[in-house]
């Protein structure tokens, strides 16, 4: 499962970042790393982008980008 599939309020632990090149690097630079915990916070009113909480701050990204981030759900 990937980050775009989480429902609001759900959490996951990152298992893999599928993106390559600048997108991957940018995600890593902003703290999106394997092993990190993410929480789905909000979905924009038009369904895209999404807002997640990672490393204690709010990050927004498009679903297309979120699809590259694989997770395992945590309760």
């Amino acid at each position: 499962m990937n980050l775009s599939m989480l429902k609001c309020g759900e959490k996951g632990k990152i298992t893999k970042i599928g993106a390559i090149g600048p997108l991957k690097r940018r995600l890593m630079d902003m703290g999106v790393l394997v092993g990190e915990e993410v929480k789905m916070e909000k979905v924009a009113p038009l369904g895209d982008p999404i807002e997640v909480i990672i490393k204690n701050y709010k990050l927004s990204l498009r679903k297309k980008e979120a699809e590259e981030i694989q997770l395992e759900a945590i309760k």
Partner: protein
Amino acid sequence: MSTMTEERLQGSSRAALRAEKKAITVGVAGNPNSGKSTIINAIAGTRLHVGNWPGVTVEKKSAIFEYGGRKIRIVDLPGTYSLSPYTQEEIIARDYLIHEKPDVILNVVDATNLERNLYLTVQVMELGIPTVVALNIYDEAEKRGHTINRRVMEDMLGVKVIPTVATKKIGLDDLLKSLLEVAENPSAHCPKHLNYGDDIESAAKMLETQIGLTPLAEKYPPRWLAFKLMEGDSQVSGEIKPDDSGLSVSKAVGHLKTAHDSDIESIMADARYAQAFGLTREVLQKTESGNIELTERIDRIVLNRVLGIPIFLAAMWFVFKLTFDVSKPFADWMSAMTAGPFKGWAEAILGLIRAPGWTVSLVTDGVMAGVGSVLVFVPVIFAMMFFITFLEGSGYMARAAFVMDRAMHTIGLHGKSFIPMLLGFGCNVPAIYATRTLENPKDKALTALLVPLMSCGARLPVYVVFIGAFFSAHAGTVLWSLYVMGIVLAIIVGICFKKTLFKGEAPMFIMELPPYRRPSFKSLMIHTWEKGKHFLIKAGTYILAVSILIWFLLNLPWGVENKKDSYLGKVGQIIAPVLEPIGFGNWEAASSLISGVIAKEIVVGTMGEIYVAKPEDEKKNPSTFSEDLKEVGTSFVHAAEDSAANVFSTVGISSLSSKEDEKRAGLKAVIQKTYTPLSAYAFVAFVLLYMPCVVVAIAMRQEFGTWKWFGIAFVYQMTLAWGVAFLIYHGGKLLGIGG
């Protein structure tokens, strides 16, 4: 006293500085939105742009000031999350740090977000340049129940760590003292080597030794260079061609790769984060403050799935409306004054010195009319800048981008593009300046190209005259159709441009949403003024020049009786045939359209001049100077009252002025004879689309540093305007409407 300077301190001037007593250079690096520009403003007395969203500063800016008897040159850099070479901001920041080697790096850290900020600190430390860390926004960190042990942090990093609150000027004196101390004794404040683990360290050691044998060691910090080569950093590899220098990178990283089964960039990122995580764990103490934060509460409403869009639209409508209602009375006052008393005074003064008639006309119809048309913009611009500054400072800007991104994405734009587009309905000029909020050059250019399709306030007078003459029964609908036409065309043109000029990957949307903050009144005023001033100076000079030019064109050769024989008239005659197929192939229309390049409302003014014979010098009762002065004063007071009243009654379009002067009435009559409803509609559509006005052109030039984008806008808009007018005129004829 401080002075803003460009990056030109080279050669002789640099030598001169050194001779005096060398100025200390401080490079300010840190995450976006960590308060770098705020700190510099506070310590150097500058007025750098600040805003509560990531990516405000996009180019490096420097300031010089004195402290403790030393000259300090401080350089503001764009905020970055790392020192990789992927975004424009990162490249600017790291090029500066590596190639210009500041004496001290001031690393500004957002204390509320320690771990992610320290990830950059760790990278800055790789450079081996003496560093001071400012733990900024410490007030908010404390409010959240965070405390940071700076002593432990100093021990672990080997550099000075100073808590600061830039907005309240707390800790800045300590910060300045530390900067001086470090500059005096740099070797004592070099950052420690953080241990990235045996695998990485041994590979780096191997490369470092090799680098030490080459001249590269002089140019680059060796440890940093070794890391970049290991990561396969595209920019560095391009600059130094490691194979030519005899560096065996692949050998060095071979073991690392097999041991970790991952790419080196990820391995390095993990190692750096491990350091940042370790540091944070040691120095940060959290006591959870149970209450939900303000930001949380606001976002629950503002980003609500159902209410989000309506709230956003309402907020924008409100800003838009308020801008115009507040500024309209002042704008009217300005234009009345320039056309009335000020003009009268100029005439009187010129009369006194017995200036010839043509100079009087040049000054009043050329210069003053030109100045007047700039002044009329002033209240709108300032009002608009005020609201933009507020939105920027509050943190809502980032939310607006978040809410609108989906819609804007379909036409190839970024969520942030929505704001300039919306502002465009008021006036295209501030809208072009507002594209500054877009960090990606592609987005910025495309947005600027589409902004002129938003029907601005200056086009309204033209619509009003023509709609009044032909469509008074359906005025509202026809007016609305023009605005919608602009929007629909912007969508179509946006998609076309995306498929051609701006082909390729849509830029990514990965953005931090900062907490809401309350901008201080003082900073609101300063930044509103800075933005408005910019417009005043530049636009003022250009618009003046063009107004004078048009005056000459309309009055040369000397003593032309019939405007048809003036240069403008002659050019009009040449252009007229081009306009023939779209329904208004007469020189009067052509000449008026040319004059409209200054500002579109001038089309109406020129038509008045051309079509309607000058009313016989109706000698107004000459007013005395003191009467005039009183008039200026009282009408200003009225304007202020109206403006204040409008704040509370922001409904109804006040711009459709009911007071109509006789000239306009005469003009309507003539227009009714010369145009058919169909050609009239084609004409207003043409006015909507045909080209950005001079001020917009200047704004584009200023924002992009080249005339290229204006050129493209000019060409596509002309083509579009002609095509659309043609379709309207001939399509209408075919359908047998209003032929």
